[in-house]
């Protein structure tokens, strides 16, 4: 144990304290909330009104500014959930368990958003609401993985057991995601040779990818804010018997 302390940074051990985490998240939150609001408003205005339209897809191309960030976020949120779960399993860190638990609903809504915008985008592009496109299918499976994690967590009565069990499931899912992605892409090329994919395109001009980048960063900041809000709630709930939570509640 003493050896560990040398190579892990100090904040890693401080994070194990729910109180320290609660306070640092409260301090960090505005630093993400303000950029999130600014970037999202700027990005949406740019995406809707100023970005040029696509020569092939016209104005329906503007859906990309929601679809791509939500898809990226849904994937990285799963990764964060699995990593946080692993930290919780290995170091028995309660706060990591809470972060992992808070990730699942946000990731699931992002997967739903990516699927919904993909389906809506499919209507003017392919002429139908749903196409078994490789990316959409992978995203659907990712949503199933999220739903499995949420269902498993809610099946346990003890919070600690639930966190450990879902961490194992999330890690198994993390190992499987590349295999699933590869197999689905391969299956797709077998059945639908060279269809037009929504987001794959040669070299986007700067007027198109700059707002996309802004939206991606905005989504990440928003995710950070939402995650911290949920994690702080979890901390209060799980630490409700601690004296610092009592003092906090009495002050409100």
């Amino acid at each position, binding site marked *: 144990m003493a050896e560990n302390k040398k190579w892990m940074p100090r904040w890693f051990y401080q994070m194990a304290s729910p109180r320290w985490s609660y306070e640092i998240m409260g301090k960090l939150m505005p630093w993400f909330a303000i950029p999130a609001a600014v970037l999202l408003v700027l990005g949406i205005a740019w995406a809707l009104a100023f970005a040029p339209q696509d020569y092939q897809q016209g104005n329906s191309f503007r859906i990309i500014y929601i679809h791509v960030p939500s898809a990226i976020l849904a994937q990285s949120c799963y990764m964060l959930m699995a990593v946080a779960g692993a930290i919780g399993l290995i170091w028995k860190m309660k706060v990591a368990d809470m972060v992992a638990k808070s990730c699942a609903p946000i990731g699931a809504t992002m997967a739903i958003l990516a699927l919904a915008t993909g389906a809506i985008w499919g209507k003017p592009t392919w002429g139908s609401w749903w196409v078994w496109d490789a990316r959409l299918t992978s995203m659907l499976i990712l949503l199933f993985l999220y739903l499995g994690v949420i269902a498993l967590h809610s099946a346990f009565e003890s919070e600690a057991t639930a966190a450990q069990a879902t961490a194992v499931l999330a890690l198994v899912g993390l190992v499987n995601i590349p295999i699933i992605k590869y197999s689905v892409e391969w299956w797709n090329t077998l059945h639908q040779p060279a269809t037009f994919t929504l987001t794959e395109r040669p070299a986007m001009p700067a007027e198109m990818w700059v707002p996309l980048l802004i939206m991606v960063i905005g989504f990440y900041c928003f995710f950070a804010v*939402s995650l911290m809000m949920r994690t702080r709630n979890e901390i209060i709930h799980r630490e409700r018997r601690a004296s610092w939570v009592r003092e906090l509640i009495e002050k409100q």
Partner: protein
Amino acid sequence: MSFDSFSEFLAMDGHGQYVWLSYAIALVLFVVNLVSPLLRKKQLIAELKRRLRREKSTS
């Protein structure tokens, strides 16, 4: 600016319904992601306050 008038901006060359529907869904899901933790926090604090009051009255 890629649109000349506001009505053109709304119509988006006939693709308006798809674009606006996507952005509306995004807005709804974002609001849900913000409001649900806020409501949960309110509920948690009310619950804990009630518990504290109960403990004080019994002791």
